[in-house]
Each structure stands twice: as structure tokens, then as C-alpha cells.
């Protein structure tokens, strides 16, 4: 036990010294800054920030590319709080809960303080999540090493089911539909076992399958451009940003909220596909119920801002745990990060500590340095960012399309990938208009090949019998979880149907 701890500590300090070189620090400083800027602009999500800026990482050395993407990720999640507080439009969905109290504070002339509290809470959230990442990941690696084909198959199904359940407010069936559509998308191309072409319709380009990054860029980038531009929503900044750094007394009063929300954020981050927005809402809700000042939530309370902001940043570290140990991303931006590190030749999973022993600690150190830069930039640029928020979206959004085109093309240097991006952009737009969540679709595309291969191999090993599954404790836990998720989801669907059948019937009778 002590040997293992000393070994881990040694790896950590080795990674720390290895990551502290000028180029890396400069890349992290720049990436965090860019992430904050992109995240602050309403309509540009953290996933989109990664989708757009992934272009810049193609030409970088591997370790610099990883640092760059992590810096963007950390900065973009925090950056969302500026527009949530100052204009009541969350820069990222993760900051939607921040807007509830933040905007009221801004209208009262305390927008600066709200931003300060948001930045400092995000800092706390990141510290908690990095500590959890370092502490828990080695344990999850040990569990993951025991995974066989059944466990991998059930994990993939569990990921899609839980993500579908959490990402749809009313009807989980919609989340599951897009999740399994993601599985189906992953079936396109040559079968991994026999190289048999599936659903290629004779098209040579489809034999290689649907590339992940073009699909992700389409789903999150192009659909977002259309959603934002379909209507002109003018907004204006109500208050001026005055004092940004809160007093020590205020910061101290936020610490219990930050710790509670940080732990919630990490826990939710570790759930496949749940994401930063779910983390922020749950932490806000728990904060409202458990805080002594709970009744002040929603009336312009710094604790409300702190609860949401701590949790959404804490999700980052949590989302890295399943990503590094099982190659299952905990959130949509983490899915983008996973796609990027695949592109750079790293295969996350239980073999990662053997193939790249220091990778976990390099990720943790990069996150830590990015977190420090996030705090510094976040407080320094709070005032100038107000002028950035005045930038018209009618100018900004069209400029994004060429960047998505480059992002889709540069990975595989294929014009076909640009067309894939466009197709998924339109598909994403239609599905979002019909109230389907995008996170399960992405998770389905990522986990589809794993589900396919492991299910077929598991069945072949057991000669079609499901009985060997009964002797596998992790498999039974996953199967039980899937059954419970399906049960609770179908119950929600039935309740939703019952409630709306009555309302719709009354409305139709009244001729509305």
C-alpha cells in the first residue's frame, strides 16, 4: 500500500517537473485564454471551443497538444459565466444555472462581484476535481483491468442509457433513440472482424466509416450556427463591471458550498455523457435545499453562483476518470478531447498506465496549471470581456463555418469529411429542434464499435448463452443498473404521456 502510494507520488512529481517547461506553460496560458474568450461568447459552447480550436493542435507535439486542449476545456467552461451573469445568456449550457442568481446580481450593480465569485468557485471546483482524478483513477484502472467482453458491452449500453436518461428533461426515450442512432452510425463502414462492408451503399468513402471528429464538429458546430442565427435575439449589458475580487470574508463563506458542489460535480462528471450542465443544475438544486441561505437562491445570491460554477468546472476532472480508464467520456467536451487524443495515437483504457505510465499525472498537472491561469485570466479580463459581449452574433457565427470546415478536413485530409460534417450539422439541427439531446448521439458514435465487437465476442465465447454473465459481479452490477435506468425512464415516459394526453385533449376540445 505504502509502496504503491510512494510510487504514485513519485510519478506525480516526475510529471510535475516534466510539465514545467516554458513552451508548455505558454501553450497552457494561451489555450486557457482562448477557451475563456470562446466560452464567454453566447452561442459558442465548450464543445464548440474544442471543435474549433482542435485545428490548432494538429500541428503540435503530442504533449503540447494535450495541454492545449485541456487549457481550452478548462477556460471555456469557466468563460460561460461572463455572459450568463452580464447578459443572462449562458456562454455555455453549463453556465445556465449561474445565470439565475448572477444576472440578478448584475442588475443590482454587483455583476463584478458575481463574476469574481464565479471565477474563484471554478478554481475551487477544479482543485477538488484534480485531487479526485489523481486519487480515484488508479483504483478505477484496477477495476477496469478485470473487465471482460461482457462488461465492456454492458458498459457501452449503460453509458448510452444513463446519458439518454439524464440529458432529456421530459422523455428519456428520446435520449435513448439518439443514443442507439449513434450506435447505428458507428456500424457504417467495414466490419472490424471480417472487413465486411456494412451500410456503405457501394460508396468507397463510406468504407472507412464515419470519422468521429467531423461528426462531432457537425453535431455541435454547424447545428449551433443554425440555432443561433435562425432568429435575431438582441441583448444588452445592463450593469457595469465594478469591483471583481470578493472580500476574504465572502470567499470564506463560499467554501462549504464550493466543497459540496465540487464533490457533486466530480460524481456527475464520472457518469458517462452527463456533462457540465447536469452537474451545475444538480449542485444548484442541492445547494438550495441544504444551504442555510437556501431561501435566498434565485434572488441574487453569491452562493447560488458559487454552487453552479464550482460544479460545472469540477465535472471536468470527474469526466476524465471514465475517459482515461475506460475510454468513455463523461461529457460532450470530454468526447471531443477523447477524439483528439485518439487522433494523436493514444488509446485510453485500462492499458493506458502500462503503455503511457505518466499520462494520468501529465493530464492532472496540465489541468492544475490551466486552473491557475484560469484564475488569473478570469479576474484580469473580467472588465474588458464586457466589450467582447457586445460583438454581434450575426457577424461572429458565419465566421465559424470556415473554421469547422478546416477542423473536419485537416484530420484526414478528405473533402468527404466536410460533407459528413455538413450532414451531421443538419441532422443535429433537426434533432435539436425536435427536442432530442445531442450528448447520447455522440456517446453512441464513440461506444458503438466497443458494443458491437464485445457483444459478438462475448456471445461467441459463451456459445450464445447468457449464463456466464451470472458469474461476473461487475457485469451483474452493470446489468442491474441498466434495468433500473430503463425502469425509471419508462416510468417517466408513462407519467409524461398520461399528463400530456389529458392537457392536449382539453386544449383540442377548446379549439386552441
Amino acid at each position, binding site marked *: 500500500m505504502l509502496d504503491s502510494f510512494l510510487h504514485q507520488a513519485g510519478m506525480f512529481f516526475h510529471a510535475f517537473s516534466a510539465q514545467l517547461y516554458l513552451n508548455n506553460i505558454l501553450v497552457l496560458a494561451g489555450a486557457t485564454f482562448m477557451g475563456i474568450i470562446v466560452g464567454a461568447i453566447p452561442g459558442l459552447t465548450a464543445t464548440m471551443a474544442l471543435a474549433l480550436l482542435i*485545428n490548432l493542435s494538429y500541428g503540435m507535439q503530442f504533449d503540447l497538444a494535450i495541454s492545449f486542449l485541456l487549457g481550452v476545456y478548462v477556460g471555456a467552461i469557466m468563460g460561460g459565466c461572463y455572459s450568463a451573469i452580464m447578459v443572462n445568456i449562458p456562454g455555455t449550457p453549463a453556465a445556465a444555472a449561474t445565470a439565475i442568481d448572477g444576472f440578478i446580481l448584475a442588475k443590482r450593480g454587483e455583476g463584478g462581484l458575481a463574476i469574481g465569485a464565479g471565477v474563484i468557485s471554478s478554481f475551487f471546483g477544479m482543485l477538488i476535481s484534480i485531487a479526485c482524478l489523481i486519487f480515484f483513477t488508479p483504483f478505477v484502472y484496477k477495476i477496469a483491468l478485470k473487465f471482460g467482453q461482457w462488461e465492456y458491452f454492458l458498459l457501452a449500453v449503460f453509458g448510452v442509457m444513463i446519458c439518454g436518461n439524464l440529458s432529456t428533461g421530459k422523455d428519456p*426515450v*428520446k435520449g*435513448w*433513440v439518439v443514443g*442507439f442512432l449513434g*450506435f*447505428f452510425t458507428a*456500424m457504417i463502414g467495414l*466490419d472490424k*472482424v*471480417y472487413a*465486411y462492408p*456494412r*451500410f456503405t451503399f457501394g460508396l468507397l468513402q463510406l468504407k472507412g466509416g464515419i470519422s468521429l471528429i467531423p461528426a462531432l464538429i457537425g453535431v455541435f458546430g*454547424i447545428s449551433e*450556427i*443554425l440555432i443561433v*442565427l*435562425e*432568429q435575431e435575439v438582441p441583448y444588452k449589458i445592463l450593469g457595469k463591471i465594478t469591483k471583481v475580487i470578493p472580500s476574504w470574508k465572502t470567499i470564506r463563506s463560499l467554501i462549504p458550498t464550493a466543497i459540496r458542489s465540487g464533490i457533486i460535480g466530480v460524481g456527475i462528471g464520472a457518469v458517462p455523457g452527463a456533462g457540465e450542465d447536469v452537474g451545475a443544475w444538480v449542485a444548484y438544486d442541492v445547494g438550495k435545499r441544504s444551504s442555510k441561505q437556501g431561501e435566498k437562491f434565485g434572488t441574487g445570491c453569491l452562493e447560488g453562483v458559487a454552487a453552479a460554477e464550482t460544479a460545472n468546472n469540477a465535472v471536468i476532472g470527474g469526466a476524465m476518470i471514465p475517459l482515461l480508464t475506460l475510454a468513455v467520456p463523461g461529457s460532450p467536451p470530454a468526447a471531443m478531447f477523447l477524439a483528439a487524443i485518439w487522433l494523436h495515437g493514444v488509446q485510453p483504457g485500462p492499458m493506458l498506465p502500462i503503455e503511457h505510465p505518466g499520462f494520468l499525472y501529465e493530464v492532472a498537472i496540465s489541468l492544475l496549471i490551466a486552473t491557475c491561469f484560469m484564475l488569473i485570466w478570469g479576474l484580469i479580463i473580467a472588465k474588458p470581456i464586457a466589450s467582447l459581449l457586445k460583438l*454581434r452574433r*450575426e*457577424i461572429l457565427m*458565419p*465566421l465559424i*463555418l*470556415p*473554421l469547422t*470546415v*478546416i477542423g473536419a*478536413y*485537416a484530420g484526414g485530409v478528405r*473533402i468527404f469529411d*466536410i*460533407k459528413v460534417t*455538413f450532414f451531421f*450539422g443538419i441532422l443535429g*439541427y433537426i434533432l435539436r429542434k*425536435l*427536442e432530442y439531446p445531442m450528448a447520447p448521439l455522440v456517446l453512441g458514435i464513440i461506444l458503438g464499435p466497443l*458494443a*458491437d465487437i464485445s*457483444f*459478438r465476442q462475448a*456471445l*461467441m465465447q459463451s456459445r*450464445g448463452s447468457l449464463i456466464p454473465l451470472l458469474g461476473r459481479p461487475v457485469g451483474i452490477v452493470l446489468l442491474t443498473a441498466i434495468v433500473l435506468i430503463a425502469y425509471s425512464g*419508462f416510468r417517466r415516459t408513462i407519467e409524461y*404521456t*398520461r*399528463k*400530456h*394526453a389529458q*392537457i*392536449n*385533449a382539453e*386544449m*383540442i376540445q377548446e379549439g*386552441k
Partner: protein
Amino acid sequence: MEKMDKMAAADLMMGLFLIVFGGAAIRASLNMKVYKTFLDAPGFFPFILGIIFIFLGSIMTSSSWRRKGYEQIKSGLRKFKFTHLFQNIQVRRVMTLIVFMVIYIFILIDRIHFTIATALYLFFTLYYLKSANLIKIIIISITTSFLISTFFTRFFHIPLP
């Protein structure tokens, strides 16, 4: 007061689509080559997915039917006119933006230089959206496309389409 659930009609159509799609997936998967056994065949997992789509599609269809999706479609069709669709500003805006994207991605890129294609796309899109006055739009289109091309090729050595 509760609002009417306007998604019932769309959900009904999606439910029916999923049933048909699931059936097509099953048919296609059964036509795929079987090497040793069907459990190991390339068509096995798509076959399972086809069954799942039919199951989820049936649930969506029955749920939306009970939420009066059929009545919503009927009343929608009674009031529906193609001219109304194109008078809707939101629909017109999205359709126009999609047309510009199609021209940019499917016609201009790979036929003319990326910088020129981007400048043309930006000019027409910004002009349609009335993002700024004409002079500003020309300046933004040309400088942005030039900067993007230079930035990615010179500084990051990234190939452009």
C-alpha cells in the same frame, strides 16, 4: 397553466419512422454475409439495433398517439399551406443559410481556392444577415478569409481544402 405539448405530432412521425427504419435495418442485416454463426456475423449487432428501434419507435408512437399527435397532424394539415411555410421568417432564414452552406461546401470548395471560396461565402452570408454595412462586409469577408488561410497554413502547417 400547463402548455399544450406541440411535439406530439413530430414524435408520432418519428415513432413511425423508427419502426420503418428498424425494419429496414433488420432486413439489411439479415442480407449480410454469415461467416461462422449469426452471433458472430457482421449483421448481428445491426439486427439487434433494428429490434431496439422498432421497440422504441412503438413506444414513441403509442405515447404520441395518446398525446393526440394524430389530431395535431390532422389540424396542422388542414391549416397547412406551402406559401405560409416560406412566409415564416425563421424558416426562410434557416433555409437560406443552409443553401449558402451547400454552395460553399459542395460547389465552391475543391473547385476554387479556399480563400476565395470562404470570402464569397462570408460576403453573401453577412450581406443576407445584414450584419453590417456593405463596405464593412466586404472588408470582413476578405480579411477574415485571408487571415484564416494564412494563419493555418503558415503558422500551423495545416492543409486547407
